[in-house]
């Protein structure tokens, strides 16, 4: 250890390494994934959803009952070793029906959200990039469509088209894409002013090329988040329709129809409502938490 008196001499090495700017550069998606994982609620919900999807595929095979078998002498049984979630008023195994319902609800929810996404992204991007009169007319049209209350439109369409999975999905997507279109359009309006678009244009890129190769990939963040948040709304709409008697028909079980059936028996056989209700709520909650987590993770302002 040098004595301090000896240190009053010119310095040889000035700690210049302290001057280097040090941070590790990681890609946007890596950063977002790290941030997402830190959000315990969101990450936990994602795990839950993965388990749910897994069970939706395999669940009906686990128990040795099918979803449509009736055991009339065993109707309205409490949950037991034989029927893990109990039976309904026709003696059907609720456990198996829950997983069938999961398939239906998840399929309807994800398909509707996906179709909304496709229509919405292209409509919004096209409108945003075109600008001017085209943009105005397109958005005016969307605004008018949007002013019709969503559930009302869906209900009317279901009355007209009759029940069934394809009609439900169609009814939901006819006006459901508008939200996605607005979000995408807003993003495009921001992005198209940026220099990289100018650069692409000056290199001779045409309208569709700019749209597909440059702009849409940059909106992916918002698109994924919005799609994730549309799914619980779609699941809710399906459940709502089924609750009103406009959903899928027996013996197919969706969570909504099961809840509707379970309602009348609430006083004496509460498990018939409890299981579908719990699953609807937990699934919606999980999708919402994952969507929120995605929104926070993909927000460029929060990058550390």
């Amino acid at each position, binding site marked *: 250890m040098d004595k301090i008196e000896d240190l009053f001499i010119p310095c040889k090495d000035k700690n210049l390494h302290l001057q280097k700017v040090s941070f590790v550069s990681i890609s946007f998606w890596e950063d977002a994934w790290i941030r997402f994982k830190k959000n315990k609620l969101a990450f936990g919900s994602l795990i839950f959803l993965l388990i749910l999807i897994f069970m939706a595929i395999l669940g009906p095979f686990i128990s040795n009952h099918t979803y449509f078998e009736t055991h009339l002498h065993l109707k309205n049984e409490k949950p037991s070793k034989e029927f893990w979630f109990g039976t309904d008023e026709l003696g059907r195994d609720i456990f198996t029906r829950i997983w069938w319902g999961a398939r239906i609800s998840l399929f309807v929810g994800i398909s509707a959200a996906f179709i909304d996404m496709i229509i919405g992204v292209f409509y919004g991007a096209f409108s945003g990039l075109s600008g001017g009169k085209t943009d105005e007319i397109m958005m005016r049209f969307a605004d008018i469509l949007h002013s019709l209350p*969503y559930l009302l439109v869906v209900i009317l369409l279901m009355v007209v088209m009759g029940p069934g999975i394809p009609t439900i999905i169609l009814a939901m997507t006819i006006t459901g894409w508008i939200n996605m279109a607005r979000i995408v359009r807003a993003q495009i309006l921001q992005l198209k002013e940026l220099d990289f678009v100018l650069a692409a244009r000056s290199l001779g890129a045409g309208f569709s090329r700019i749209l597909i190769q440059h702009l849409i990939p940059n909106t992916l963040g918002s698109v994924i988040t919005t799609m994730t948040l549309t799914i619980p709304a779609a699941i809710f709409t399906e459940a709502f329709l089924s609750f009103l008697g406009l959903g899928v028909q027996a013996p197919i079980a969706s969570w909504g129809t099961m809840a509707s059936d379970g309602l009348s028996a609430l006083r004496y056989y509460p498990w018939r409502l409890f299981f579908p209700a719990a699953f609807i709520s937990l699934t919606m909650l999980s999708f919402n938490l994952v969507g929120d987590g995605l929104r926070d993770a993909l927000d460029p302002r929060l990058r550390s």
Partner: protein
Amino acid sequence: MQLINFIFKKLLILLFSLFLVASLTFFLLKSIPGDPFSQEQAVPEEIIKSMKAYYGLDEPWHIQYFKYLKGIATWNLGPSFKYEGRTVNEIISEGAPVSFILGAEALILAIIFGITLGSIAAIKRCRFPDHVCMIMAVIGISIPNFILATFLQYFFSMKLGILPVARWGSFTQSILPSISLSALPMAFIARLTRGNMVEVLEQDYVMTAKSKGLPLFLIVTRHVLKNSLLTVVTYLAPLCSGILTGSFVVEKIFGIPGLGGWFVTSITNRDYTVIMGVTMFYSSVLMTSVFLVDLIYYFLDPRIKLIPRSASHG
């Protein structure tokens, strides 16, 4: 002058949208194959003919269309298909006030508690109260109102017996329904308020207010609230829409004789005139509320109003 322009444009859009809804509803329901009477069993041919004449169904479609539009314009929505001797107008005028009261209760609950919870979460952000409020809010938007309604009914009425199960008339009977109806909008408003308020709280002028020595309560009420609530105002229109559609299930569960319940029944019964009439009624109410909200928003933001008069900058 700007204001008149603004109102005129919005009114025009309103009327056009209503026209669109009316036409859409008409053609949609007309497109259902068969006629409503073919579902009845074994009704003699002459009776069907006279019923069709009564309902005007034997005329060519464009005549029906014009009569329908005229009916809407004069607010005569015709007779109900399924309920003898009742007109759609009667059904609406009986059910609407009930739904209105229920809706208003839910609206007030949602706004007051939503703003309060959101404000608390914003002020205490990233600490315990914030997490609690926001978890409650996520649960609020995730549990469908009919599930919440049945749960409340099961727990508070059937198990604990402290609140009435169903029906309408007294204040206590309205408690559970309005809570069920207000949960989702309340949660939404709480999230919106928190998001906005957090941004406002980061603004420099809040720092100025603090440096004056203002206590927190005054800082929030005088400087923060007004600037945070503009987004909540824009949410008001979807809010009304949500409460309205929510009333369908809540009224069904609690046996409330409101318009929502009638609407659901008319759907199950395929009572087409009622369906069309109530749809038109609902659409008019909702679109008018959108129009009113636009007007409120216009008056609330002084920057929009005042920009033409501003002095030079810089």
